[in-house]
């Protein structure tokens, strides 16, 4: 798992297990495993995100950047992080924060069910957050199912 997991800072009213369960309910995992009879937990996408405590009750994107910079780079992928905040429990969205040189590069509000898809692509620079922002268009929240 080393190096393939990004931090999900949880400052929401949801507990970590509930938060991850909603993210992992993504149909993206099912599509990736199409035809595979093994359990979803065995998907290589299952641990793209792991919860860590938020640096404070209402972190800004820069707080997230600073907290991410303190993580062990051998264990974590640190070019992208996610913030679950007070809005998350209300509309199932989180804030994806793309980072560059320890600073906030881009942010995008993303549906929990699409966050694994976005993060795994940004991790590998297969698709930068800019392309998802363009894909989102005028929508306030990116949702690949829309």
């Amino acid at each position: 798992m080393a190096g393939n997991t990004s931090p999900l800072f949880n400052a929401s009213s949801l507990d970590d297990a509930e938060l991850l369960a909603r993210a992992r309910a993504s149909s993206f995992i099912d599509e990736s495993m199409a035809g595979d009879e093994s359990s979803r937990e065995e998907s290589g996408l299952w641990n793209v995100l792991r919860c860590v405590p938020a640096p404070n009750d209402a972190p800004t994107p820069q707080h997230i950047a600073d907290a991410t910079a303190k993580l062990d780079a051998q264990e974590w992928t640190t070019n992208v992080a996610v913030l679950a905040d007070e809005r998350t429990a209300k509309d199932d969205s989180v804030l994806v924060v793309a980072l560059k040189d320890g600073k906030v590069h881009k942010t995008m509000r993303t549906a929990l069910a699409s966050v694994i898809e976005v993060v795994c692509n940004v991790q590998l620079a297969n698709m930068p957050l800019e392309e998802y922002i363009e894909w989102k268009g005028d929508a306030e929240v990116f949702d690949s199912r829309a």
Partner: protein
Amino acid sequence: MLSLRTLLFAALAAVTAASAATVTFDCSRVPNICSNDCYAIRCLGKPTTLTRNSPQAEDNRDANACRSPNRCSGNPSDSNSCDEYPFASTSQGGAGASTRCVPSQENSRQGGTLSSFYTRNSVANGDSYSVAFSNASGLQYCSGSCTNSGNQLVRRLPAFAARQETSIVQTRKLLLASGEEALMFEPVSARGSLNRMVNQTVDLREEAVRVVAVL
């Protein structure tokens, strides 16, 4: 005298080196991605064995036509995302990569396949792996002409300016235990090198599938 542990370790290392993991892209889900990859491999001679180098990924993407804002930005939805081969997350990526404007959904799927493959097969930075394709029949660049239909773009560095008129790789067909087939490409200069794939596995749709025969 070498200890038994040393000998066992050496034997394991030799086996591992001979059987690099193989990611298989299902071209029925990502046809435009497969077209770009096949073009790069068959028509430009790009390698099918890649070395993961994720720390280099963003710099690699910035070194070719996929840099942001990329040439696909603003295109219709069937071609608004920039795909590159060799992948940005490999040592072979970057300048000279073959790029193609593809649907965002396809590019996003490809990233999921690659990410999952890296994790499931413990492909760490510095590790090599191979690339294969399933359901590629009918895709021009995976078996047919290398004539550029206009969708491919390669940065015009001298080393890459000369597009190959004839392929320098040959197509090999892997028969899988699942009953499916996968394509791999073998350098003409190393005929038979893919015969080693028999009884090895390829990663297809997050499943390790055994190779029954190589044709």
